[in-house]
């Protein structure tokens, strides 16, 4: 349970995607084992420091993944979950798909960082399907990642282009995992999903570009 403080840290500007990645990287406890989802979460790796000694997992069977491979480093047998060629760090290990997802499902990773279409006030996650009736469905490892780590963090913009909040009282998009999200990193603020006086909901830890009041006014969710 996170301590609820009344005044969140704040900045005048909304966070850029780079700033957001830097903040997520900063918040990862040194020595953690982490899985970074495809897309925006992948960029968090660029801001992890060697001193943090964070070990990256890729669900296609590797711990100790290094940065993206370039030029002569490229090896078709060494890719990440996004099928991008990557490198291997000293102390790495390889394992098969069942062992890799067992590692995740068994709760052995400290943090998994994912993108999202929508997160509910209680931490339900929607990130695998827009629910469009004519779309071809595809899930990959999204549902395994959502519920696998000790903590699931989401990176997303707080609002869609038309201004609809992506942090919502309940999901309107198809569920990826229930009650799994513990933190939401957005351009406008950082939320921890926590319990306060028996209610589970988002606590605003940092506000950026908007004040706490502005954020509260634009959300249909009660901030704790």
């Amino acid at each position: 349970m996170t301590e609820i403080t009344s005044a969140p840290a704040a900045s005048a500007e909304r966070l850029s995607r780079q700033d957001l990645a830097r903040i997520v990287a900063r918040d990862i406890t040194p020595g953690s084992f982490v899985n970074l989802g495809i897309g925006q979460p992948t960029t968090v790796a660029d801001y992890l420091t060697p001193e943090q000694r964070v070990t990256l997992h890729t669900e296609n069977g590797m711990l100790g993944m290094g940065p993206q491979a370039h030029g002569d480093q490229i090896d078709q047998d060494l890719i990440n979950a996004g099928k991008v060629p990557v490198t291997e760090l000293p102390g790495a290990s390889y394992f098969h798909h069942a062992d890799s997802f067992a590692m995740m499902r068994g709760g052995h990773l400290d943090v998994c960082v994912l993108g999202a279409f929508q997160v509910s006030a209680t931490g339900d996650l929607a990130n695998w399907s827009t629910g469009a009736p004519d779309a071809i469905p595809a899930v990959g490892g999204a549902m395994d990642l959502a519920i696998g780590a000790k903590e699931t963090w989401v990176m997303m913009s707080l609002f869609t282009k038309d201004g609809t909040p992506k942090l919502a009282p309940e999901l309107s998009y198809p569920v990826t995992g229930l009650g799994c999200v513990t933190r939401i990193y957005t351009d406008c603020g950082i939320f921890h999903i926590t319990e306060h006086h028996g209610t589970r909901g988002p606590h605003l830890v940092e506000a950026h570009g908007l004040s706490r009041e502005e954020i509260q006014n634009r959300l249909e969710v009660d901030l704790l």
Partner: protein
Amino acid sequence: MPAIAESAVEAVSAVNDGSTVLMGGFGNAGQPMELIDALLESGSTDLTVVNNNAGQGDAGLALLIKERRVKKIICSFPRQSDSWHFDTAYRAGEIELELVPQGNLAERLRAAGAGIGAFYTPTGYGTALAEGKETRQIHGRNYVLEYPLRGDVALIKALYADHEGNLVYRKTARNFGPVMAAAAAQTVVQVDQLLPTGEIDPETVITPGLYVDTITVVPSASAAARGEAPADAAQAA
């Protein structure tokens, strides 16, 4: 001892019309390209295919789907920028799709190889992919009951085999190979090199030979590019 097939076409002869075929690989890594191409050539049809994806571009599995020889695909991620043959077949209602979260796919294959009748997994609980499935709360956590996924034939790729069928993989190309090898009645492997028995350290064997039925040697372009030809391998039988 596994059979040594002289060609990929000979190696895939275990696949019949109506077979369930497990195909290894995640992206290109570990994908048994030549075995899949041979399957294309073989003419077998009415297949159920288990793979992480549903074919890409105009090659391999995508062409099997284009030719309507796959009646059903069981996979985690069919939709890709270049999965047009699957997309067309799917929208035309000419291929059945069973969408499985990737970790459940791997665990269902593992269960088939391990003689487990069914298992409770937390993945997918409360989602559309668990609709109609049995669920249970165990020690306060919610689970979905999932069943084993068996194959008639597995087509996989490894780095080395010895004549006993012991396999060693390479980096993230290992992926689904070991669980598919154990989940199929017949396992067919394409390897870069076939080594004399005794050349693979027993501590480093990933797939023990008893899971392997047929081996065919297909030196891979990536191996050549790596310039890897271990001293051991040069004298391979």
